[in-house]
C-alpha cells in the first residue's frame, strides 16, 4: 500500500514536471506555430537566474517564482524582436534559427558560468509514507504545475488578453481588422511562453541542478509532449503529459531511469505515427 502511494506520487510528479516543462513551448507553438528549439535553454536560463538570485541573498521562493520568470520573459521578448519576428510563416527557418540561438546560449553560459553543475538544495525537507520517505518538494512541484496550468486556463478563458490571444491565434488578419496589433500579441505571447519556461527551469533546478547543456535533457521531452498533445494548448499538453509521464515512470520503476526515458521517446514516436495530429487532433477537439 505504502509502495503504491509512493509510486502514485512519483507518477504524478513525472506527469507534473512534464507538463511544467512543456507548457511554455506549447503556448509558443500553439499560438504562433513557431517551434522554439531554444526552449531547453530558456529552462536552463531560468535555473541559472534562480540560483544566481538565491546566492545574492534573495529568498529562494522569490527567486524561483518571481525573478526567474521575469528574467527569462524579458530575454524571450528580446529574442522575439531581434530574431523570430523576421521568420513568421517560415517554420523550418524558425526551427533552424532557434537552434542557432540554443547553441549560442549554451556557449555563452559555458563562457560565463563554466561547464560545471551548480545547484541549490531543495527546500521543505522530506515526508514519510509508511516505511518510505519522499521529498516534500516533489509535492510542491505537483502543486505548482496545477497552479500554473489553472492560471493559464483562467487567463485564456476569462481575461481580455486571453480572448485577444485566442482570436489572433485563430485568424490574425481578422483580429488585425478588428483593431488588434498582431505583432504585439506575438511578442507578448512569446514573452509569456519564455517566462513560463523560466519558471519551470527554476522550479526544477533544485531537483536536477543546472549546467549549460541541461536544455538537451528537457527539449526532446518537451517537444514530444507538445507535438503528441496536438493543437489544443492545455488539454493537449496535459493529456500527453499524463500518457508519457505514466509510461516513463512505470518503465523507470520496472527497469532503469535510462530505459524509462527510452520508453518515453519510443512511445512518442509510435503516438505520432498513429495520431499525426496529436491526441487533441482526435480527442477533445474543441477544448482549449
Amino acid at each position, binding site marked *: 500500500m505504502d509502495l503504491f502511494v509512493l509510486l502514485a506520487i512519483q507518477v504524478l510528479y513525472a506527469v507534473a514536471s512534464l507538463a511544467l516543462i512543456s507548457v511554455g513551448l506549447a503556448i509558443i507553438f500553439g499560438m504562433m506555430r513557431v*517551434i522554439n528549439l531554444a526552449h531547453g535553454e530558456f529552462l536552463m536560463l531560468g535555473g541559472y537566474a534562480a540560483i544566481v538570485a538565491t546566492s545574492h541573498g534573495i529568498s529562494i521562493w522569490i527567486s524561483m517564482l518571481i525573478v526567474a520568470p521575469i528574467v527569462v520573459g524579458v530575454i524571450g521578448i528580446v529574442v522575439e524582436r531581434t*530574431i523570430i519576428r*523576421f*521568420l513568421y510563416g517560415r*517554420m*523550418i*527557418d524558425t*526551427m*533552424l*534559427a532557434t*537552434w*542557432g*540561438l*540554443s*547553441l*549560442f*546560449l*549554451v*556557449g*555563452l553560459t*559555458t*563562457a560565463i558560468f563554466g*561547464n560545471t553543475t551548480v545547484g541549490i538544495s531543495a527546500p521543505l525537507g522530506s515526508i514519510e509514507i509508511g516505511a518510505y520517505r519522499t521529498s516534500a518538494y516533489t509535492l510542491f512541484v505537483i502543486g505548482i504545475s496545477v497552479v500554473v496550468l489553472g492560471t493559464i486556463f483562467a487567463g485564456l478563458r476569462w481575461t481580455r488578453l486571453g480572448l485577444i490571444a485566442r482570436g489572433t491565434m485563430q485568424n490574425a488578419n481578422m483580429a488585425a481588422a478588428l483593431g488588434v496589433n498582431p505583432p504585439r500579441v506575438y511578442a507578448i505571447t512569446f514573452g509569456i511562453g519564455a517566462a513560463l519556461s523560466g519558471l519551470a527551469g527554476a522550479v526544477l533546478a533544485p531537483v536536477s541542478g543546472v549546467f549549460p547543456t541541461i536544455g*538537451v535533457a528537457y527539449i*526532446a521531452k518537451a*517537444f*514530444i509532449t507538445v*507535438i503528441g498533445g496536438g493543437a489544443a494548448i492545455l488539454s493537449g499538453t496535459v493529456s500527453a503529459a499524463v500518457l508519457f509521464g505514466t509510461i516513463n515512470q512505470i518503465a523507470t520503476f520496472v527497469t*532503469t531511469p*535510462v530505459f524509462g*526515458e*527510452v520508453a518515453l*521517446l*519510443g512511445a*512518442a*514516436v509510435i503516438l*505520432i*505515427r498513429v495520431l*499525426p495530429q496529436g491526441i487533441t487532433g482526435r480527442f477533445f477537439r474543441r477544448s482549449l
Partner: protein
Amino acid sequence: MSGRNLNLLGLVLVGVVGLIFMFFTPHFADLDTVLELTVYMIMAILALSLALVWGYGGILCFGQSAFFGLGAYTYAIAMFNMGESTLPVVLAVILPAAFAALLGYFMFYGRISDVYLGVITLTVTLILFNSVNSTAGPEFHIGAARLGGFNGIPGIPPLNWPFNKGAAVDLEGMFYLSTGSLLLTYFGLRLLLASQFGRIIVGIRENERRAELLGYDPRAYKLATFTIGGALAGFAGCLFANWGAFVSPTIFGLAQSAQIIIWVIVGGRGTLIGPVIGCIGIQWLSAALGANQPSGGSDLWSKIFANAPLILGVILIAFVLLVPRGLVPTAADVAAFVLRGRRRREQRGLEPQQAE
C-alpha cells in the same frame, strides 16, 4: 556560355581540382595537416549525405548523425569480432541504410509532415544517444566488443585491403581513400541527380501533390532518398571510426547533428558543392579558433572565441536571417546577374540560367 556548358565546366573543374588535391597534398603537406584534411574529407561525405536528403529530397533530417554514429559503431563492433575489415565496411553501410529504410518507412508511409519528421528524427537520435551512453558496464558487449557507454570504444583496428588482413591502410592511405571516396560520392550523386530518379525527387520536393498526381509515389521516392542518405552517412561513420580509432556516443549527439545542418545551410541547399565547401570551411574555422579545445582560454574573450557552440550558433542565426539560401546559390545568383548584364550589352537574347 549556356547554362549547360557552365554546368559541365563546373563538373570538370571540381574533378580536376579534386584530383590534384588528392594526389599532391601528401607530397607537400606534413602528416599533421594530412591527418586534419582526412577528417575534413570524411565529414564532407557526411555533409553530402544531408545535401541529398535535405537539399534535393526536401526531407529535413535532424538525425543524420544517427546514421553516422551507427556506421561508426557497426564498424567498430564488427572489427573487434572479425578482425578483417572487408565485411565490417559492408555492414557499416548496410546497417545504417537498413535502419534509415525502417525509420523512413515508418515516417513516409505514415504521411508525417516535415516539421514532425524533424522532431521524430531528433528523438530517435536522442534515443540512440541515451541508450549507447548507458552501456558502460562490462555486461554490455556484442561478441568480443565492449560497448563502453559514455567512455566510447578505443583502439579500433584500422582498415585493411579487402580480404588481405596483413595489409593495413596507413595514414596517407586513409587520406587517399577518404578523398577518393568523397570525389566518387560527389560524382555519383551528380549522376544520380541527373537521372530520372533525381529529377523526380526534386519534383517531389517542389510540389509533392503535383508529383503524386502525375503518377509518382512520393513515399517510395522519399524512402529511397532517405535510405541512400543513411548509407552514405554510415559509410562516413565507418571512415571516421577508422580515422580516430575511437568512437564515443557524442557522435550521436545534438551538437554533431547541428553541425551537419549548419554545413548544408552555410553552403546552400540544392547544391552539392556548397555543403562540401560549408563543411570544410566551418571545420577549418573551428580549428583555427581553437574551438576544439573544450577548456578554452582563461580570460572572457578567449572563452568566447574558443567556444564552438557559441560561434556555430551565431553563424547559424546569421545565415538563416541574412543568407537563407546559402553561399553557393547566392554566389551563383550574383554571377548570373553579372553575366546577364554583359549578355544584354552584347545584344543577345536572354537564356534561362539552369540552376545546379
